């Protein structure tokens, strides 16, 4: 499924060999699904394809500034050495995650909620469903709005408006990874299931993330929390009064007892690979993040399809390196997906017991 991709990237890499690596300082960001958009690319003339590069995003600073740890040169050297020797400061290998613990149902007032802890990073995600009117252009789909907030309890820097930049960056990255393009194709979350009455009534899902404690790798933790919250979500069943004319709002009866479990099999997990020196690591702590030259966050779903991609960091990356990182992240995502699924089901079992 990456074949259409490879054609384009090989042509791009051809042009890059003739340029200085420095000019690649711009950021590359593009959303893909499987074949349809790849074919779309192949139709574009080569010059236009190169212009796809020029879609800038916020740089390295936003993601790490909030939790920037001042490190001495000696410590930085030690961290880099550890990553090069496959032995990080807490003994992990490069592709090992910290212990992940998941709790569901932490916010009883919401339709679904979850709290995910990866080491010291602690995030809460909640899902609220409200009835609303669908977009005119996408009348058969519901709406999903993702928003992230950084609580000042995580770090004093997030006080007042200090955490705004980081919150915006995380919200946009999550939207890109989980919601697909503007036309609605290729979304990780199936929005058609949110429709109630076509053209008139649909569910608006408000997904809110809150960072309670921050120690690096916020995007992965938020992605996992959203996945867990969605599997915990119950959308109330709606009975629509059948005798409704075309222009009136139909009467609805929202059931308090019956709930539909949201289908989460298609929701991707987000894997962030941080490049330090020559090697990539997964699940970086905030100390390691301050050392990164660039990072790629890839969201991969159960079928191994890529649902979204973001590159952060000011350093340029050779396209072959990007491809390598994507394949590594696909491999890591399988383990992460399995781990998350088992944790989520354990958490839901705990919740029903208590």
């Amino acid at each position, binding site marked *: 499924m990456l074949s259409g991709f490879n054609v384009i990237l090989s042509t791009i890499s051809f042009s890059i060999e003739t340029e200085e690596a420095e000019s690649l300082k711009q950021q590359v960001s593009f959303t893909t699904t499987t074949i349809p958009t790849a074919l779309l690319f192949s139709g574009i003339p080569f010059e236009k394809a190169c212009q796809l590069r020029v879609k800038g995003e916020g740089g390295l600073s936003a993601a790490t500034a909030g939790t920037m740890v001042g490190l001495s040169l000696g410590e930085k050297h030690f961290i880099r050495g550890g990553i090069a020797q496959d032995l990080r400061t807490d003994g992990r290998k490069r592709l090992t995650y910290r212990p992940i613990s998941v709790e569901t149902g*932490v*916010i*009883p*007032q*919401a339709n679904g*909620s979850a709290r995910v802890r990866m080491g*010291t990073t*602690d995030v*809460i995600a*909640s899902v*609220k469903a*409200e009835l609303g009117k669908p977009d005119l252009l996408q009348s058969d789909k519901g709406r999903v709005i993702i*928003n992230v*907030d950084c*609580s*000042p*309890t*995580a*770090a*004093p820097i997030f*006080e*007042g*408006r200090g955490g705004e930049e980081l919150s915006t960056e995380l919200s946009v990255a999550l939207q890109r990874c989980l919601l697909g393009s503007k036309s609605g194709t290729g979304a990780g979350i199936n929005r058609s299931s949110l429709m109630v009455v076509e053209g008139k009534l649909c569910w608006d899902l*408000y997904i*809110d993330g*809150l960072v*309670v*404690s*921050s*120690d690096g790798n916020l995007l992965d933790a938020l992605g996992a929390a959203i996945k867990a919250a969605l599997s915990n979500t119950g959308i109330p069943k709606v009975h629509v009064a059948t005798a409704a004319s075309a222009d009136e709002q139909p009467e609805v009866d929202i059931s308090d007892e019956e709930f539909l479990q949201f289908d989460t099999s298609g929701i991707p997990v987000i894997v962030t690979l941080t490049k330090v020196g020559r090697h990539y690591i997964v699940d970086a702590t905030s100390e390691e993040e301050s050392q990164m030259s660039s990072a790629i966050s890839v969201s991969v779903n159960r079928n191994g399809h890529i649902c979204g991609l973001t590159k952060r960091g000011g350093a340029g990356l050779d396209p072959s390196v990007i491809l390598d990182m994507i394949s590594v992240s696909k491999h890591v995502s399988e383990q992460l997906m399995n781990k998350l699924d088992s944790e989520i089901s354990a958490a839901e079992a705990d919740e029903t017991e208590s």
Partner: protein
Amino acid sequence: MEYVSPEGLRLDGRRPMEMRQIRAEIGAVSNADGSAVFEMGNTKVIAAVYGPREVQNRSQQINDQALVRCEYSMANFSTGDRMRKPKGDRRSTEISLVIRQTMEACILTHLMPRSQIDIFVQVLQADGGTRSACINAATLALADAGIPMRDIVTSCSAGFLNSTPLLDLNYVEDSAGGPDVTVGILTKLDKVTLLQMDSKLPMDIFENVMQLAIEGCKAIANYIREVMLENTKELEYRRGI
């Protein structure tokens, strides 16, 4: 609408003088110097204390006292309808100020000159009485951080609906339009540090309602004291000799 049934039960099944179930947990945020989670019924609040540490803004430094700062923020998902702006709106600013003044009165600031104490309160779920829950959580967090205090500050709210004084209003009862009295006391010294009321109330009934709220505060103080004592004992025996 009937908030107190003829049998004397409220909407959630409580008696008029009955408080909601409280639960406290110390040490929720590992990065902070002190932190606590406080729940009153469905209201859930996290407080984190950073300090005493060096003043970040040199111009605000006070030479003989510690500078106490506080910020109150509500999560987007905390209320029934989603909030647009989690912080910076007037209610949040006012509550931040209230918490700061209450805690500043009980912290012995002269013992830590030229330093700064930050109290951050985050509301996870709001179901009435958020102000009180925040103050209780802040007290626990400050004790966890080892900051010397004059006394334990606790807070509770009470109201008056259907001619009955009610203790610890939840959101539905709070939005009924009746009076809402929030009281904060220094338990050992038996002094009132915070007193706020909305709406109208005759003077003699006010005294009853305020007394009821003070009783609620004392009950919370007993619980908080137990939690702190158990926490201290546990830390001590774990540390060993």
